[in-house]
């Protein structure tokens, strides 16, 4: 727009007016027309966009969607835990039994915390957990005793 106006003013007041403009403004108008011609001409340009040639039939689609690579694999490593009867994977511990043991160790740790009574008081002797009505044996001679107020669970054997 600015360019066109400059051209017009240069033609009308030709010799008298000397316009100080940079060289880029004095290019011929034909460049714009060339660009408009080239824009929709995809056949000559280097880049070619990919598009599907034909509709994929339902048979081909089914082959792709249902081949074994895309289906969910069946797991054959699921067993029943012999203790509680819940399902477990063969190489993994049973979730129910582990939670049970974790709860019990949590309660034991609460007792340990009470006994230690403060941070950074780790003992230098072994620890033994005794349940209701149990006496320390000769093996538990120099050990620190942690007492729990319940009957010994049958999955926690004494030796």
């Amino acid at each position, binding site marked *: 727009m600015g360019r066109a106006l400059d051209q017009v003013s240069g033609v009308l007041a030709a010799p008298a007016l000397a316009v100080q403009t940079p060289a880029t403004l004095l290019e011929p108008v034909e460049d714009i027309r060339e660009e408009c011609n080239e824009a929709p001409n995809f056949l000559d340009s280097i880049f070619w966009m990919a598009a599907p040639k034909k509709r994929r039939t339902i048979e081909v689609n089914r082959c792709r969607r249902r081949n074994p690579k895309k289906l969910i694999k069946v797991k054959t490593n699921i067993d029943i835990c012999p203790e509680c009867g819940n399902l477990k994977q063969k190489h993994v*511990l049973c979730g129910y039994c582990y939670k049970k*043991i974790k709860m019990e*160790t949590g309660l034991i740790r609460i007792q340990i915390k009470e006994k230690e009574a403060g941070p950074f*008081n780790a003992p230098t002797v*072994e620890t033994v957990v005794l349940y209701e009505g149990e006496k320390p044996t000769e093996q538990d001679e120099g050990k620190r005793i942690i007492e729990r107020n319940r009957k010994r*669970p049958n999955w926690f054997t004494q030796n």
Partner: protein
Amino acid sequence: MRLSLAAAIYHGRVHRRLGLGPRSRLDMLRNLVTALVRHERIEAPWARADEMRFYAERLIDYGKRGDADEQAMRMADFWLTEKDLIHKLFKLLAPRFQSYSGNYTRLLQIPNRENLDRAKMAVIEYKGNPFPPLIVVHRDNEKTLLNQLLKGYREDILKTRATQVPEEAPASLYTGTAV
């Protein structure tokens, strides 16, 4: 030897990349080792527990050298950030594992973490800890269903043999017992 893991980390490298960098990895492993020595059983992501296992067992080997050893004391000082655990290492863990030559830890996989990430978790513990055992070994009991059924079947066979003996000739009994 972790042959399967070496295949997962290309070209046979042994160290995993954890945390923000090598220093961060060592700090993270140091925290885990300190926690393991303090609590003797911890839960952690499987990769970290597996990586930490080597360092925990090496620490016990250093502990076995005794606290008079300068190198052992420096190692324990670096790896255990809580200094009362150095006493625990040299006076409790080293004597406990005197009879073992290796494999002081046990690493077991747990069901995946409950969070959104469903991370593969493991529990790692020093053997000989005072807590309830994670794997309960059961001997076959006489009271199991299978054993009771077999016992009943055995008794039935003996009863039928006892009732058949007075009817049949004694010669056939001998052939029966020979089989």
